[in-house]
Each structure stands twice: as structure tokens, then as C-alpha cells.
């Protein structure tokens, strides 16, 4: 039983990080009906922004909450700017083109960031500096909770609550929901469509940047292709939860994280990636629009 709980806790921690990335996929899809393939590479850039900011600001010399928050801020701001530029210069000019053009552009941006990253940072993995001394794990019954793991979880939850607050309690969030419902009607309310779309990209990218840092702390080896599998699984989590639905993305990500931890714990970690897609297939068989997704009938 304690073993199961241990796996469960590990899984929830992993799921929380998936959720941070899945939220960006689902928000952009909600507002543009676009699968932003470059999103997983924004997450990778977040890890590198964290690496370089901690090198240049000397954050690794004095590990602690302060250093962690500083690195988080750098990665989130950096990624928000990257997200803004991707939307502004790659997607916005194609706003009126067929969807397939935008999709291909998204794949192109993704490859550009991955291999541009290899050129810039080098293809070999880099060691991510420990920004936080995890010290002795907390003992709870027979369960061990690593302090770092707890911190990662707390940071993810705080960020997700922050996002929820923005989406459901602020004027900008209301504008985002209105635009994702209908661009034309939102414009009739006086909502600036392009600015709202930019904001959505920036928020999603900032969360992906935070995920980059948190993953760097947990698995301290980062490389320019780290986003490929991890990002793909976060995307699967968003689809499982019902793409376009913010709560669904978090639920999908938690399912994905817990299932993965259980497979690693009881079976073999080789199957962890296959599992994500097995879950996807099973859930879509029963709920084609995802767990919280709604089947919207095309209006005639």
C-alpha cells in the first residue's frame, strides 16, 4: 500500500508538470483551433533560459527559494517573449489562410527551434544547476516525499491557480474566453482580437517556461530535443482531457503522470511512452472529444 501511495505521489508530481505544458496547448487550440507544435520547444527554451540565467546571475552558488524564483521569472519572461514572437511573426500573417498552412508552419517553427537550439546550445545534454538543496526527504508513514518534489508540485499548483484566476476572474481572461468562443462576436464587443491572441500565447508560453525549469530541477539533464517526447505527452494529455478545455488539460495531465509512474513502478519504464498513447486511444474510443471536451455540432 505504501508503495502504491509512493508511486501515486510521484505520478501527481509528474502530472503537475505535464499540466503546465498541456495548458498552453489547450489555450492556443481554444482560441485559434491551432495545434501549436512549437509549444514543446518553448518548454525546452524555458529550461535553457533557466540554465543561462542561473549561470550569468550566479544563482547556482546560492541555492534556495530566491534563486529558484529568479530563474523561474527569467524563463517565464523569456518564453512569453518567444511565444509572442512566434504568434506575431509566424502565425498572425497566416490568420486568413487555410488551416493546413498554419499547421505546417507550426511544424516548421518546431523544427527550427529544435535544430536552431542544437546549433546554439550544442547537441549534447547540459547539466542543469541545482537551484534548490533538497536536503532530507520528509517521512510520512512509510512514504518519502522529496522536498524538491514538493516544491515543484507547489510551484505548479500556484501557477495553475494563477492562470485560473486570470482566465475566470479578470477582464483580460473574459476577453480570452470570448475570443475563443467566436472571433467575430468578440470583435463586436470591442475586444481587440489580435492583442488577446498574443496574450494567450504569452501566458501559455510562460507556463511552458516554468515547466522547463521544474523539469530541469527534477531531471537535471537538458538538451535541445528534450521537448519532443515530453511535449508530445503533454499534448496527448490535453487531448485526453478535451482539448480547448482548461480544467480538462489538468485532469488529462494528472492521469498521464500517475499512469506513467505506476507503469514505471510496477512494470518497466521502457513502456512509459507507449502508455501515453494507449491511454489516448482508449479514452478517445469512449469519449471522442476527450474527458471534458464537448462535441460541438457544426452550426448550419
Amino acid at each position: 500500500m505504501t508503495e502504491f501511495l509512493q508511486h501515486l505521489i510521484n505520478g501527481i508530481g509528474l502530472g503537475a508538470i505535464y499540466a503546465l505544458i498541456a495548458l498552453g496547448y489547450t489555450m492556443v487550440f481554444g482560441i485559434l483551433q491551432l495545434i501549436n507544435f512549437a509549444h514543446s520547444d518553448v518548454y525546452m527554451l524555458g529550461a535553457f533560459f533557466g540554465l543561462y540565467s542561473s549561470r550569468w546571475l550566479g544563482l547556482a552558488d546560492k541555492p534556495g527559494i530566491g534563486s529558484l524564483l529568479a530563474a523561474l521569472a527569467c524563463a517565464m519572461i523569456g518564453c512569453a517573449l518567444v511565444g509572442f514572437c512566434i504568434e506575431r511573426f509566424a502565425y498572425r500573417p497566416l490568420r486568413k489562410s487555410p488551416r493546413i498552412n498554419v499547421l505546417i508552419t507550426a511544424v516548421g517553427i518546431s523544427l527550427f527551434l529544435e535544430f536552431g537550439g542544437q546549433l546554439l546550445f550544442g547537441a549534447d545534454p547540459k547539466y542543469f544547476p541545482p537551484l534548490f538543496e533538497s536536503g532530507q526527504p520528509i517521512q510520512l508513514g512509510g512514504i518519502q516525499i522529496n522536498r524538491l518534489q514538493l516544491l515543484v508540485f507547489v510551484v505548479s499548483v500556484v501557477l495553475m491557480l494563477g492562470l485560473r484566476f486570470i482566465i475566470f476572474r479578470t477582464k483580460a481572461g473574459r476577453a480570452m474566453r470570448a475570443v475563443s468562443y467566436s472571433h467575430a462576436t468578440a470583435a463586436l464587443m470591442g475586444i481587440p482580437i489580435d492583442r488577446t491572441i498574443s496574450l494567450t500565447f504569452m501566458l501559455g508560453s510562460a507556463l511552458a517556461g516554468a515547466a522547463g525549469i521544474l523539469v530541469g530541477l527534477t531531471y537535471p539533464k537538458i538538451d535541445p530535443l528534450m521537448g519532443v517526447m515530453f511535449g508530445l505527452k503533454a499534448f496527448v494529455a490535453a487531448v485526453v482531457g478535451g482539448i480547448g478545455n482548461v480544467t480538462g488539460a489538468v485532469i488529462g495531465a494528472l492521469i498521464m503522470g500517475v499512469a506513467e509512474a505506476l507503469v514505471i513502478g510496477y512494470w518497466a519504464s521502457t513502456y512509459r511512452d507507449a502508455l501515453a498513447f494507449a491511454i489516448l486511444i482508449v479514452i478517445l474510443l469512449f469519449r471522442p472529444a476527450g474527458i471534458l471536451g464537448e462535441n460541438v455540432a457544426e452550426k448550419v
Partner: protein
Amino acid sequence: MSAPLLEFRDVNVHYGAIHALKGISFSVEQGKILALVGANGAGKSTTLRAASGMLPISKGGVYFEGRKIDGTRADRLVSMGISHAPEGRGIFANMTVEENLTLGAFLRKDKSAIAPDLERVFELFPRLKERIWQNAGTLSGGEQQMLAIGRALMARPKILLLDEPSLGLAPQIIEKIFEIIVKVNETGTTVLLVEQNALLALEVAHYALVLETGKVVAQGPSRKLLESEEIRKAYLGD
């Protein structure tokens, strides 16, 4: 006489190869209700969309308070005082009634005046107040129409563009909604009303235009049109 509030001068609109508006000219006087009537496909909704910036025009000009406004972005037109309750109501079904109404006031800077305006909308439509925390998608058709009008009013428009407010509603509800349109107009808001139900529209409007396949085929004070033999035959089913 002062310049008209809204004016169309020889406006043409194309949807691809389709020539939807073929040189339409008219003007809406401050404080009046102008009705656009005509059959399906005559270009009534297209005219409204051209006025609110949802559609580009291919020739001619649209003027608001004497300024040329065609080509201006829809959200800028809202801040100038043009509010459009679109066909099919266009409410945000995934948001509450309250959220829908406050979105109507999205651009307003006078925050303190928004709450009293909300009360004013609730006075016009008490039903909306009862349903304030409900998701707008769960409202009945009539309530959704009330919400669309109320939301448009929250922008404090100089002109309110209404597209088929009677569409798909029961007669008693239509009557109620038209009473409110008149009330809104009496408080000083100019109204441009598109309506397939010509009789209803002519009864409330001061002035009316009859459109047919993208052209104005008749216009005049609505009382005159109501009396005209031809109009009665073609549009009022006499």
C-alpha cells in the same frame, strides 16, 4: 439640419463572385428608428455587417457622424458608438448572463457608471436579472435575444444595429422585444433595425428601406410604405 448619424453612400459589397450590395445609399437620422426590410438574401444583414466593420466594402463609403468609417476595425467602431447585436444573437453560451453583459461594456473607461447601466438593462429585461448567474447557453431563445440587446446597450451606443430580433421567437415575446426597442429609442438611442417581419418593423420604425437583391427598391416614412399598395402586396401578404 445636422449631418445624419450614419450614412451609406453607394456602398457595394462582394462575397467572392457574389455581388451582395449593389450601390446602396441611405442615411439614419439621429434619434430615429430606421428599418431595413426585404426577403431573405436581399442584403439586409450584409448592410449591418458593413456598418459594424464585420465586412469590407468594395466600393462607396460608410460615414458615421460625418467621418468615413469603412475599413475601420470592428472593435474601434464599438468605441465610436456603434453596437451590433448580430443575427443569431451571438451570445457567449459558455459564460454567465452577467459576464455576457459586462463584456458589452468591455471598452468603457467609466467603470463607476457600468453598475447603474447594468441595473437599467435589468429594468428593461427583468428576466435577465433572475438568470444572472446562469450560463447564457441555457437561456430560452427570447431570453437570449434580450441578452443580445442588453449586451449591446451596455456599450452605451449612439446607434444600435439589430439583426432580426424576432427570428424564431413566439409572438408574445416578439411583441415584448419590440416594445423595448421603442423604449430604448425613446431614451435617445438611434436604431437601425433589420427585420424580415416587415409589418412589425414598419410599425415601430420612423423610416424604412425596402431591399431587393442588393438594391434599395423603395424607401420612405414607414407610415407611407404601410399604405403603399405595392409594398402591402409584396411584403405584408395582402
